[in-house]
């Protein structure tokens, strides 16, 4: 009895409302995406019909309400205590999935449970977050120490490797989000900075011929040597360092070339090329990017109005209800609606990070950062892909995209943190 009241008081209602707003808005837009203006529904209640995805999503939403309650009623210490066990169990499920799954669109990441399919990869993020939080909050573990960093790295890298084996590259990539957490916990800023430099080199080497990029790096190195280093700094050691930077940069450029042309599969190659030049293949690989752009752009400032979009219906935009749900937002709600969604996400992320910083337990803080990092990474890639700033990577927009696995996994991820946070205030 008392527990119930405590949770009501302790839970961060701001986060809950932001979550609810996103889920509700997502649900409306899923209905818009499946709505057929050619054959309009007689009743407003059509949105609940299980004949289409909006109705199914409503069921998913209802079930996630149950999940919330379950999470909030489980003792908060459970997550800390069972962090590794949950993680280990998840790894087993991921491996089992490869063998148990039925192949859907070339991917072996779905497990069939009766008439529903679940994608364990979605839940692996939560498990990894718990394990990582538990490990980093262990006494004497220090991320700046090489040995500990390697362990943390292993925790983060094992699940995506298995997921890649399931041929679900998009989900695997999201584990890169944990870099943000590691950075917060003391990992040298060099690593994320290197990541960004790597990304820039990656894009440059796609746009320009390799040798131009390498020449560019060389020019920068020489300029750095003569313009930024004072005479006494031009030591043999620093020269060696700069040459190393140059070689590393060149290696990355050539490596990207090799990776794109030799390692990636044809359809993946095209997705990367389309990022640089969507017009190269407007009817093929560029189709998604082009159509998504047309849909969003045609929404203009105020949007076409709810259910009045045309591009996002009639199958022009692929995966309109799932990965490309943001197109529906852009087309029907316009600039106002799109920015609204981004602002709600930013408010949520801001709230989460501030809550995480307030945590007294290290475990809660790190887990909070994990939640923020994962949500942010999805936002970054998903919206970036619909507006043509990111390659087409099939990951959902949290809370908005259609799909039980995705909605439930994000709900679990978020509400575990809210549960932990609820116990911050009255614990001591």
């Amino acid at each position, binding site marked *: 009895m008392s527990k119930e009241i405590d949770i009501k008081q302790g839970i961060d209602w701001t986060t809950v409302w932001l979550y609810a707003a996103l889920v509700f808005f997502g649900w409306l837009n899923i209905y818009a995406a499946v709505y057929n203006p050619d054959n309009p529904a007689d009743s407003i209640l059509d949105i609940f019909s299980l004949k289409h995805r909006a109705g199914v999503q409503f069921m998913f939403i209802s079930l996630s309400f149950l999940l919330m309650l379950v999470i909030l009623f489980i003792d908060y210490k459970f997550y800390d205590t069972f962090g590794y066990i949950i993680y280990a169990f998840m790894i087993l499920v991921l491996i089992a999935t490869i063998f148990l799954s039925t192949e859907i669109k070339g991917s072996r990441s779905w497990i069939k449970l009766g008439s529903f399919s679940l994608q364990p990869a979605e839940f692996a993020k939560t498990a990894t977050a718990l394990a990582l939080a538990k490990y980093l909050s262990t006494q004497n573990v220090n991320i700046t120490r090489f040995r500990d960093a390697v362990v943390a790295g292993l925790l983060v890298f094992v699940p995506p490797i298995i997921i890649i084996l399931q041929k679900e590259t998009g989900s695997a990539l999201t584990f890169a989000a944990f870099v943000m957490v590691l950075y917060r916990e003391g990992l040298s800023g060099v690593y994320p900075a290197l990541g960004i430099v790597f990304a820039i080199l990656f894009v440059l080497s796609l746009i320009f011929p390799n040798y131009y990029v390498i020449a560019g790096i060389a020019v920068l190195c020489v300029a750095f040597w003569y313009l930024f280093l004072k005479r006494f700094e031009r030591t043999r050691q620093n020269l060696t360092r700069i040459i190393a930077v140059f070689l590393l940069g060149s290696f990355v450029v050539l490596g990207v070339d090799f990776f794109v042309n030799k390692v990636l599969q044809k359809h993946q190659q095209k997705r990367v090329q389309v990022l640089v030049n969507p017009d190269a293949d407007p009817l093929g690989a560029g189709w998604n990017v082009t159509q998504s752009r047309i849909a969003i752009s*045609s929404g203009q*400032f105020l949007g076409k109005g709810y259910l009045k979009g045309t*591009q996002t*219906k*009639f*199958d022009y935009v692929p995966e309109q209800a799932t990965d490309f749900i943001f197109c529906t937002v*852009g087309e029907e709600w316009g*600039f106002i609606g799109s920015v609204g969604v981004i602002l709600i996400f930013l408010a949520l992320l801001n709230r989460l990070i501030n809550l995480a*910083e307030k945590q007294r337990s290290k475990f809660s803080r790190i887990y909070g950062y994990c939640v923020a990092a994962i949500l942010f990474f999805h936002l970054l890639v998903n919206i970036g892909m619909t507006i043509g700033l990111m390659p087409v990577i099939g990951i959902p927009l949290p809370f908005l995209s259609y799909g039980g696995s995705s909605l439930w996994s994000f709900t679990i991820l978020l509400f575990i943190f809210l549960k932990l946070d609820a116990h911050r205030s009255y614990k001591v």
Partner: protein
Amino acid sequence: MFDNRKQTILGFIFLVGIIYVLRLFYLQVIDDTFHTLGSTNAIQKEIQVPLRGQIYDRNGRLLVANVEVYDMLVTPRKVKSIDTLTFCKLLGITRGYFDSTMNAAKEYSANRTSLFMRQLSKEDYGRIADAMVNFPGFTFEQSFFRTYPGNTMANALGYIGEIPKKQFEEQTVPYYRKGDYIGLTGLEKYYEGELRGRRGVKFMMYDVHGEEKGVYQGGKFDTLAVIGKNLYSSVDIEVQQLADSLFQNKVGSVVAIEPATGEILAMGSYPTYNPSLLSGREFSKNFLSLTRNPDKPLNNRAVSAFYRPGSTFKLVQAAIGLELGVITPSTSFASTGSMFVFHSGPYEASNLNYAIQLSSNPYFYNVFRKIIGNNNEKSPFQSARIGLNVWNGMVAKFGFGRKLGIDLPSETKGLLPDVARYDKVYGKEQWKFSNIYSLSIGEGELGVNVLKLANLCATLANRGYWRTPHLIKGIGANGKGIDSELRKVHKTDIDPKHFEAVVNGMSLVIKQGTGRASNLESVGIEVCGKTGTSQNKKGKDHAIFIAFAPRYNPKIAVACVVENGGFGGVASAPITGLLIEKYLTRKISRQAYKEQVINTRYTTVAASAGAKAAPKPINPDAPEKTPEKPADNKIKPATKPQAR
């Protein structure tokens, strides 16, 4: 340090947020590529071309009508694995046509429709339509082409054709699409805005497979096609067709006006062409052959040819002379002492009537001299300047040297010399009456088209005013909406009372003078007219005749020019007489005479030399002069005595 890292992370997150918002702002607000309806692929604009307005004659008979046809369109992306050979056979086209048209369409857009084939007849369409299920990607759009039940008036009606590239690019308000039909000449051009109607636009939704998904937003943005307005012409198709037949074997032009209203009753330019030649699929081929004809059948001579008014202009001189008081109806001039040598015989110009009847050159030389000298200036140079200025102003009121404002696009201004013109030719104050005297008989630096002559005739019939001549007297169902400019009354400076003497002279021209060939006394109509012979350096003179009838309360004023017809009384007067008779009595009493006129042949210099009969350039030397002889029914070469 930890706090610092939190800020860095939040900063990075917000930076991404800002970049995304800016990108969205660019996509949704700034970049308008996909903002207009129909620019996206889900909504496609379907154009419904309305039928073009029809044109009727003054008695409600059709001059221009439409035939419904079907244009075939192609969407290249949808054309998949078709049996090209069967397809070509079905449509009766060559493989080469298919390939080149398809390539052009692909080049334009794979997803949008391009024109594949124009103007399939209803029968062809019916034959092909069923077979089209085997040829996806081809659609039909209803269209039309023009037909001409009256088979006449090609030059005044004009023709329609694909919008010229330049005009397409220079549209201030974008309306026309590439390949749209537009009036290119004549009434089709002048009344394009009324005739074309308004295109309907329908926004249809299509899914990604090209299947129709209904009307966009219940048709909120659609506009209905509005059919073009019909035009009601003042032309009398029977008079017009008679003119067509009378002008067989001749080059020239005829215009008939109802004087009181300015309504044009007939307007012919000859040789003309069959208007259906420039309608339909054979347009380009026929157009080329028409442009190659040395007699320029595409020119509307009625409004754009250049002739000297010749002796018809003497009527203007007479009216001005009377108004200025330099002559009276009984003024006489000796036939000697002018710069024109009057040809032999009893043509002593003892009064104005007689001078008009005989078209006396010396008489009007003197009239003009008096007009020019009608001031107190001693210097002949100064005097000529002042006189010409007054004269110019009064002649201009007759519509000379300006556009009359007819509802046709190609009207020319003609030529009316002013002081500045002679200053330029001779130098300031370096010219006097003896330099410009040829104007007195309508030669020299005067230029008119046939419309202007008809208008002069109407002005005389009205005794001093004219109304803007026009071909169209009603637009649309209620016949309203005509520009009031086209109904304007233009007054001359001449008091109406002075015209009686002039008209009397014109009546004598018909009864016993140079225009006897158009005498209609046998059917009880008093015709008033005047012959003219327009000099033409390239060859034989052009025969001019103007006439109106009846003398009192005139109903029709006609001007007729037969190029290289020689003397006006011979070549043009008979045609004019027959037209007047037809209009006023609805029949021709003299069938044999009509046949004779039809069979008379005048060959133009242009046709025989294959060159264009260019207007005579301004000649500072004393112009040749052409006296006129009484008409007879044979063609006589006009004699050309020396000027001095």
